């Protein structure tokens, strides 16, 4: 086993462990922290695949900004730690295992045909490549993104301001 494989297993375990912790932890804030752990592992996996820009964005935007929003939502919803568990439907528990099996089988079918030794294309995700394509080939979508963000700014303002009227 190479060092790189070892790293992959470590970070994949971080992603999966974080994800499982999000589902299992009862305290929503602990869940949010577990999700950050998962994001860190995911970012490392992106970097290992040669997608450095996405890896950085994963940390800056997701682990930073989006998680902050999550924590604020948890605060706004005012969830009590001692809140009662919602009633469980017994049959759902029995349904979970077959459905998980079905999902695994589907995923396996999708992945089985892929050649294992195919290395990720090293260049495609570098910051230089992303920047160059963004500034030349995808210039129009790039500029339109600013309009999209502008719309989001106005939309967010009006959604949050509504209560005053």
């Amino acid at each position, binding site marked *: 086993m190479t060092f790189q494989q070892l790293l992959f297993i470590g970070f994949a375990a971080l992603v999966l462990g974080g994800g499982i912790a999000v589902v299992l932890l009862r305290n929503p804030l602990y869940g949010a922290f577990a999700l950050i752990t998962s994001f860190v592992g995911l970012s490392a996996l992106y970097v290992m695949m040669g997608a450095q820009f996405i890896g950085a964005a994963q940390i800056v935007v997701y682990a930073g900004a989006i998680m902050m929003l999550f924590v604020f939502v948890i605060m706004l919803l005012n969830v009590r730690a001692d809140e009662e568990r919602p009633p469980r439907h017994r049959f759902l528990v029995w349904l979970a295992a077959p459905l998980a099996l079905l999902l695994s089988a589907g995923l396996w079918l999708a992945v089985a045909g892929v050649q294992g030794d195919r290395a990720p294309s090293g260049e495609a995700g570098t910051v*230089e490549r992303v*920047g160059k394509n963004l500034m030349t080939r995808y210039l129009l979508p790039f500029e339109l993104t600013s309009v999209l963000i502008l719309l989001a700014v106005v939309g967010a303002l009006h959604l949050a*301001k509504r209560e005053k009227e």
Partner: protein
Amino acid sequence: MSNDLQNYIPLLMSFGLASLIATTLLITSRLLGPRIQTREKLMPYECGNDPVGNARDRFSVKFYLVCLLFILFDIEAIILIPWAVVYRALAEELGNKLFVYAEMMIFVATLFVGYIYVWKKGVFDWSK
């Protein structure tokens, strides 16, 4: 290991070191520290004062709005990075510095309109 990933070894080391220090501190303080619990010690910590009321209170939606705006301008900030990295090379390749500069300035200007709008609407005015 490919040459490209070797650049990330220092990052990996600092990641490992940070986790190591954090876990070591937690474990040693748990093993070595005395645990004498008094009522005052178990109180929620509010900068040294006795806590006022329950922490699980309703928060103003204003905080949420600031958070939303932070995400949007955070996305703008991360998009600046690839531009800044390729700026010099691309300006030489296209032979037009101003063009590459203007590309980003249009992007920033559009968002600046949003910023002024939000400011005029009084989102940053905390006394309201």
